[in-house]
């Protein structure tokens, strides 16, 4: 947003400031590859200093509270900052403490997350030495950041253990609170073969009550038990605690946001982007990227005193790693489920939607470069528009 706005707002009238409590910026999609030794630590983290756009101020402080009624931010060191317009981009974090026993004696010993740098790295170190057993890949509850990541993790694990020659000693089970690994009609029809082909077992409708560290099992509210030797869990995802301290969120600390304009529902000079919102789009980097384009226009409209564009359509565009150096691509929005087809040029591609290909896999790996060198600088992705296009999609019925 700062990269976009610094180019649009006259510097004599506007001061742009980024507040970030961290000095490091992580390429979070890379956390998926860290456990399997595909990426190293260096690939997924950079110092934030080199990423701040020219002409933008950077404050490295922890925010204690946002006071939207006073247009003010209070820092933990008791200093304050005033604003005319605030963009909340506080993201989401894992909250393993929400489930009894999850952050217990087994945490990062045989119970791992891969949604944090530490979790992904510790899991990598564990897997390097692991000789096999029961691996349970588990989703605690929705919504989660990058909803396909646990499925990708399962597919990549299958490939990883095959390459290591120990696949016959590893049992992979995918445990989800949803009714299946695939819940949309077209995906269910076209992708269910993947689980069978990779011999991944599935336990659906599983709502976790506790992690039993001693017994090495997870237990659901209806007393279903799943044993593990290593549990790879996606804990509850919640918005940042600053949202709770500021009284701006729902029960998961996500901020009530207008889903088409990205304006806060409560405060007209507060806008929200990315995982911090409660909009019913995926919590994914591509969503934040497309949102940024609409939000830039809307902030300029707001400043000009004009009506905001109700434009954002929930557009999401994600590569899904399926293992064996292949991936799929999905492109969807609030109303359109992922379907097969061609992307970004209708009828041509070169990328294929909802179908495995080697090219899609290279697309996913190339995306790391795109992220650091284009997305963070506010450069649009060629031929990929903010709103989803229907052309190139095989849509049979609604």
């Amino acid at each position, binding site marked *: 947003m700062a990269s976009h706005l610094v180019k649009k707002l006259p510097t004599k009238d506007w001061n742009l400031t980024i507040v970030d409590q961290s000095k490091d910026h992580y390429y979070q999609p890379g956390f998926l590859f860290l456990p399997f030794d595909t990426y190293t630590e260096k690939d997924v983290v950079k110092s934030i200093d080199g990423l701040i756009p020219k002409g933008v101020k950077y404050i490295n402080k922890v925010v204690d509270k946002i006071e939207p009624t006073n247009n003010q931010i209070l820092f933990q060191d008791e200093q304050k900052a005033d604003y005319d317009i605030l963009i909340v981009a506080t993201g989401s974090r894992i909250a393993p403490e*929400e489930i009894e026993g999850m952050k217990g004696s087994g945490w990062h010993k045989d119970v791992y997350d891969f949604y944090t740098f530490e979790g992904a790295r510790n899991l990598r170190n564990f897997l390097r030495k692991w000789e096999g057993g029961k691996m349970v890949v588990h989703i605690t*509850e*929705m*919504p989660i950041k990058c*909803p*396909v990541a646990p*499925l990708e993790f399962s597919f990549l694990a299958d490939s990883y253990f095959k390459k290591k020659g120990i696949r016959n000693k590893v049992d992979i089970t995918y445990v*989800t*609170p*949803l*009714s299946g690994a*695939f*819940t*949309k*009609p077209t*995906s269910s029809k076209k*992708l269910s073969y993947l689980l069978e082909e990779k011999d991944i077992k599935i336990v659906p*409708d599983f*709502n976790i009550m506790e992690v039993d560290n001693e017994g090495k099992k997870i237990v659901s*509210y*209806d007393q279903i038990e799943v044993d593990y030797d290593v549990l790879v869990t996606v804990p*509850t995802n919640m918005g940042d605690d600053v949202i709770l301290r500021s009284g701006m969120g*729902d*029960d*998961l600390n996500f901020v009530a946001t207008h*889903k088409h304009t990205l304006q806060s529902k409560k405060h007209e000079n507060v806008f929200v982007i990315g995982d911090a919102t*409660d909009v*019913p789009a*995926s919590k994914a980097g591509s969503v934040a990227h497309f949102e940024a384009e609409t939000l830039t226009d809307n902030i300029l409209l707001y400043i000009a005193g004009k009506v905001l564009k109700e434009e954002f359509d929930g557009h*999401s565009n*994600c590569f*899904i790693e399926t293992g064996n150096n292949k991936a799929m691509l*999905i492109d*969807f929005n609030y109303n359109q489920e*992922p379907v097969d087809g061609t992307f970004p040029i209708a009828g041509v591609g070169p990328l294929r939607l909802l179908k495995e290909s080697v090219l899609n896999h290279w697309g996913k790996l190339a995306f790391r470069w795109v992220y650091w060198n284009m997305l963070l600088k506010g450069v649009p992705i060629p031929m990929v528009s903010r709103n989803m296009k229907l052309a190139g999609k095989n849509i049979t019925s609604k």
Partner: protein
Amino acid sequence: MEATIAGINVQVNEEGYLKDFSEWNEDIAKEISNQEEVGELTDRHWTVLKYLQDQHINDIALTIRKVGKSGVTDIKEFYALFPGGPLKKATKIAGIPKPVGCI
């Protein structure tokens, strides 16, 4: 696709969930409840169903946690009312979409 539930023609998806909540009524709920082996709907069922529908109307995503913390019911009772997949079954009876992922 079209289906006839409790003598009424309604639009449903492949899994039998109503596509349009405005077509829902209590007779439809009773018939789906029988199909889903939830059985007779008591006052407690109706209270929970009403809560789920209100959430849906307000565009709020449904999770077991949210239902458990709603003050309307708790997770234990929710399971007892709609055994074997409470959100999946209760949303179907309530005429609203079941919680889904992105694929």
